[in-house]
C-alpha cells in the first residue's frame, strides 16, 4: 500500500508529522553554523514547520496562496515550503540567481503573496521590484546579517518573528494547525516548479503531493534507500529534483538532508559528511573530473606516473566488467593495489567514499566521463526524468549501469515510444498540468493522458530506456547522415580544456563547433607554458590556445564516425551564460537561441571566411546590458579542407 492511500501520510506535511512521531530525535536536516554542523531532529523540524505555518496564518496566508523561496539550500527555506503546504498553499521556488525580468514574470504569473528570502541580497532584489509585484504582501528573511536597516519596513519580517507570531497565534487558535493539516488531500498541488525551459518563457509545472510521494516511494524501493542515510541538499531549490530528493525522498525514507555552508564549500562539506548518495548534473561530474585531471597534471612526475598507470588499469577492468567478461587474475591484483594507492584516496578526496549510489541526470554525461567514475569504484548510474514527471522516470539498477541508456522505469511508471520516436510516460508521477496554461498542457499530454517528454529515444532489448537527444534537435547532415549534436558535444566536453561546446550540422555539409574554453584549466595550462594572458577574451585569441583546443578536438574526432567529425571550430570570446539566456538555469545549452544569436557565426562556418565579427549583448547580474564587439577567428581542422571543397 502506498503512503498516499492513507489519510495520515497522504501529503508531505503529514509525512513530516508522522516522522516527528515515529523518529522524533533522529536527524532530519542539518546545516553548518559557524563551521560546526547543527542537527535538527524530525520533532524539531516539525515544530518549526508548525510555528512558521501558524505565523503565516497570522499574516493572513490562506489555502491556495503561493509562497516563494529564494536562496541557497537552507533548513528554514525547506521549513517555509512545508509550512505553506501544511496550510494548503503552494510553494513556488525560484532560482537564487534569477535576473529581475525572470523573477517578475514568475512571481506575477504565479500570483505569489509571500517571499521567503535567504539574506539581505535577495531581500534587496525583491524590494527593488516591489512596484512590479502587485500580489506581494510579505518578504520574510532568514539571515539577520545586514538587515538592521530594514527594521522600519512594514512588509519585511524576520523568520523568528514570524515563528513567534505563530506561537502567539496558536495560543488563541488551539488546533488550527492540526485542522489545516487534516484538510490536505493527496491531489492538492504542493509546488509549482517553473521550468527554465530550453525554449521560450518559463512554464509553471503543478505537482501534487501524490506526484511527489509516489515517485519518492518508487525511488526508495528501487534503490534501497534506508533511514539514517545522509544526502547533500545542494542543488538549486527551484529545480524540482531538489524537492524530490531533499523533501520527498527525505520524508518518505527518513533520510537526512544536509545543507552545505555556502555554494563555494560544497566540495569540502561533501568530504566532511561522506554522504551515502549523491545526485549531480553532468556539469558537476565534469567539474570533478577536471579537478582530478588538473591536480594529477600538477603532481610530481612519480605521483603522476602512479596515477596514470592505475587509471589505465581501472579503465581496462571497468571495460571488461561492463562487457560482462572475466577479469584476469593479474588485472584483478593490479586493481586491488590501485584501490589502495589511487582509487580509494581519490574517492575520499571527492567525498564519495561512503556513497552506495551516485546519480547523474538532467543531461547526458559523456560515456568516457561516466566510465571514468565507475572505474574508480564509484557506483555512478544514470537517472532520467523531467520536471513534468516529478523529476524521475527511470534509473539504472545496480549492476546494469552503462553510459548508453538511462535505465529501467521506476515501479509504477510506464514508458512507450511513439511512431516518431518520442518517449512518452504514464504514472502517478505525471504532473497535474501547467499553471494557467491549459492549452500548453493539452499539447504536452496525449489523448490518453501520457506525457510527451520531447526526448527522442527507444527501449532496448534489455528493457532499458535510451535517449538520443531532444527530439527537435536531432537532424541530418546534408548527405543524409543522422546528426545528434549532443553526442558530439559530450565527446568534446570530455576534454578538461573545453567547458561548453555547441555543435552545428543539421542540413549542413559537415559538423562545426563553437567552443567555450574552461578558464581555470586553460589558464593553468597557460601558466605552466609561460604564456602571459590578461583575461578570458585574451586567452581565446591566443594561437597557442587554439592549437591546444585543436589537439583536443582531434582526439575527440578519432572517436567519432567519419561524417560526424568536427571540421571547423572557433573559440567563443565569453562563456555561455544563463544571464544571457544562452543556457538554462540548470545549465543546459539553449540550442535554438544560441543558433539564432550566433547566426553570423554559423553562416561563417559554412562560408570561406577565416574570421567573423560578432557583436553580442552581455547581461550583468543586476540586469544591466552592454555590448561586446570582436573578431573571432575560425579554425580549420587540418585534413578537412578537401572535404569542405568537396562539399
Amino acid at each position, binding site marked *: 500500500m502506498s503512503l498516499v492511500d492513507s489519510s495520515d501520510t497522504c501529503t508531505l506535511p503529514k509525512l513530516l508529522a508522522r516522522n516527528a512521531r515515529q523518529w522524533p530525535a533522529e536527524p532530519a536536516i542539518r546545516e*553548518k*553554523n*559557524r*563551521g560546526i554542523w547543527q542537527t535538527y531532529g524530525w520533532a524539531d523540524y516539525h515544530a518549526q514547520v508548525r510555528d512558521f505555518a501558524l505565523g503565516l496564518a497570522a499574516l493572513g496566508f490562506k489555502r491556495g496562496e503561493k509562497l516563494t523561496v529564494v536562496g541557497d539550500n537552507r533548513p528554514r527555506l525547506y521549513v517555509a515550503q512545508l509550512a505553506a503546504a501544511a496550510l494548503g498553499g503552494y510553494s513556488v521556488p525560484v532560482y537564487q540567481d534569477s535576473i529581475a525580468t525572470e523573477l517578475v514574470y514568475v512571481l506575477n504569473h504565479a500570483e505569489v503573496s509571500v517571499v521567503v528570502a535567504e539574506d539581505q541580497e535577495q531581500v534587496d532584489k525583491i524590494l527593488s521590484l516591489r512596484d512590479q509585484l502587485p500580489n506581494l504582501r510579505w518578504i520574510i528573511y532568514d539571515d539577520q546579517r*545586514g538587515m*538592521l536597516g530594514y527594521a522600519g519596513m512594514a512588509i519585511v519580517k524576520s523568520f523568528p518573528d514570524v515563528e513567534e507570531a505563530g506561537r502567539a497565534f496558536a495560543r488563541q487558535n488551539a488546533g488550527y494547525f492540526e485542522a489545516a493539516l487534516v484538510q490536505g488531500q493527496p491531489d492538492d498541488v504542493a509546488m509549482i516548479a517553473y521550468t527554465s525551459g530550453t525554449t521560450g518563457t518559463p512554464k509553471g509545472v503543478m505537482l501534487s503531493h501524490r506526484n511527489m510521494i509516489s515517485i519518492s516511494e518508487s525511488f526508495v524501493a528501487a534503490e534501497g534507500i534506508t533511514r539514517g542515510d545522509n544526502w547533500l541538499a545542494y542543488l538549486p531549490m527551484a529545480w524540482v529534483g531538489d524537492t524530490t530528493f531533499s523533501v520527498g525522498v527525505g520524508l518518505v525514507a527518513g533520510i537526512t538532508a544536509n545543507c552545505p555552508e555556502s555554494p563555494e*564549500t560544497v566540495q569540502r562539506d561533501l568530504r566532511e559528511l561522506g554522504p551515502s548518495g549523491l545526485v549531480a548534473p553532468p556539469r558537476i561530474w565534469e567539474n570533478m573530473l577536471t579537478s582530478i585531471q588538473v591536480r594529477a597534471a600538477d603532481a610530481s612526475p612519480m605521483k603522476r606516473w602512479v596515477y596514470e598507470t592505475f587509471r589505465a588499469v581501472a579503465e581496462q577492468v571497468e571495460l571488461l566488467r561492463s562487457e560482462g567478461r572475466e577479469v584476469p587474475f593479474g588485472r584483478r591484483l593490479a586493481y586491488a593495489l590501485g584501490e589502495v594507492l589511487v582509487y580509494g584516496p581519490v574517492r575520499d578526496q571527492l567525498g564519495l567514499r561512503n556513497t552506495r549510489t551516485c546519480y547523474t541526470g538532467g543531461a547526458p554525461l559523456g560515456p568516457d566521463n561516466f566510465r571514468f567514475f565507475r572505474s574508480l569504484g564509484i557506483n555512478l548510474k544514470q537517472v532520467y526524468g523531467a520536471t513534468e514527471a516529478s523529476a524521475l522516470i527511470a534509473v539504472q539498477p545496480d549492476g546494469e549501469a552503462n553510459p548508453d541508456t538511462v535505465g529501467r522505469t521506476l515501479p509504477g511508471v510506464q514508458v512507450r515510444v511513439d511512431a516518431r520516436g518520442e518517449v512518452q510516460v504514464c504514472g502517478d508521477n505525471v504532473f497535474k498540468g501547467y499553471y494557467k496554461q491549459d492549452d500548453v498542457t493539452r499539447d504536452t499530454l496525449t489523448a490518453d493522458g501520457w506525457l510527451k517528454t520531447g526526448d527522442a529515444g527507444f527501449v532496448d532489448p534489455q528493457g532499458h530506456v535510451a535517449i538520443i537527444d531532444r527530439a527537435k534537435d536531432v537532424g541530418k547532415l546534408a548527405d543524409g547522415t543522422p546528426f545528434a549534436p549532443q553526442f558530439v558535444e559530450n565527446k568534446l566536453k570530455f576534454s578538461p580544456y573545453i567547458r561548453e561546446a555547441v555543435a552545428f550540422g543539421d542540413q549542413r555539409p559537415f559538423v562545426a563547433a563553437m567552443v567555450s574554453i574552461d578558464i581555470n584549466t586553460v589558464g593553468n595550462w597557460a601558466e605552466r607554458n609561460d604564456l602571459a594572458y590578461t583575461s578570458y577574451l585574451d586567452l581565446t585569441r591566443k594561437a597557442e590556445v587554439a592549437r591546444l583546443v585543436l589537439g583536443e578536438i582531434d582526439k575527440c574526432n578519432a572517436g567519432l564516425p567519419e561524417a560526424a567529425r568536427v571540421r571547423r571550430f572557433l573559440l567563443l570570446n565569453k562563456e555561455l551564460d544563463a544571464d544571457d539566456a544562452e543556457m538554462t538555469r540548470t545549465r543546459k545549452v539553449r540550442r535554438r537561441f544560441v543558433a539564432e544569436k550566433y547566426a553570423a557565426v554559423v553562416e561563417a562556418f559554412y562560408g570561406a571566411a577565416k574570421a567573423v565579427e560578432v557583436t553580442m549583448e552581455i547581461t550583468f547580474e543586476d540586469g544591466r546590458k552592454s555590448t561586446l564587439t570582436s573578431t573571432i577567428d575560425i579554425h580549420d581542422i587540418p585534413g578537412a579542407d578537401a572535404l569542405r571543397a568537396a562539399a
Partner: protein
Amino acid sequence: MSAAESLADRGAAAPILTVQGVSKKFGGVTAVQDVSLEVPDGAIVSVIGPNGAGKTSLLNMVSGFYRPDSGAIALDGNDITSLRPSQIAARGVARTFQNIALFSGLTVLDNLMLGRHVHMRSGVLASALYWGPARKEEIAHRARCEEIIEFLKLQDLRKQQTGALSYGLRKRVELGRALALEPKVLLLDEPMGGMNQDEKEDMARYVLDVNIERNVTVVLIEHDMGVVMDISDRVVVLDRGRRIGTGTPDEVQRNPDVIQAYLGTAKGGGQA
C-alpha cells in the same frame, strides 16, 4: 539607508576619539601640521586628501606607530598620545594597512586567531598543553573568529593560506583580522585601493555592516570619492598636512578650499 537619516544625531554623539592639534615632522618635512578632529561615537568619519596630504601619518599617530611632535590624542576621554601601539590596540583601536599586513604563510583562520591575541590570557605552557582553561579559551576565541568568518563570508577560505588569495580577498581578511580584536574604533587605510568595482561595492557594504551591526566607530582613508560620499557621516579633508575642511559629505563637496585642493586654482582666482 538609515545612515543618512540618523546623521544628525550620530554627528552629535559624544566623541569617542579626539585628536587635538597634532603635528609631525620628518626631518625638514612637515607631514601633519596642527590637525584636530573629533570622531563621534558610532559614526563613519572619512579622511580624504590628495597624495601626501598626511592621511596615513595621522592614522599612524592615532594607532601609536608615530608619536606626535605636539598635540594630544584621547580615546574615550583618556589620553593615549604616548602609549605604545600594543597598548592602544588593547584599548580597542584596530587598524588595517594600505599595503596589507597579513602573515601570508598562515591560513585565514590563523590570521584571525592572531588578531585575537590581545584577548588571550593563557600562558605559553598552558596553551602548549592545550588543557583546562587554556583549551576553553581557545575554543571561545575560535567561536568569535567563526562569527567573523561568517560575517565576512570567508567560509570557503578558512583553511587557505592568505598568500594565495586575490588582492581583494586579502583586504577582506585584513578587515577580519582587525575585527577579531573587537575594536571600539576601526582605522581603515584605503580598504578599497586597487579593487575592482564589484569588490569595492562589497567592501563598502562590509564597512557599513561593521559600523551598524557590530557598532564599531570607523575612521576611513579612501580615494574613491563615490564610496566616501555615500557612506560617511563626516568627512575631514587634509592638504599638505593641514586640515582644510570638515563637515558632512554635502558641506565638504561645496567647500571652495576643498574644490581648489582637488582641482587646482581656477584661472585668475585668488588664493584662499
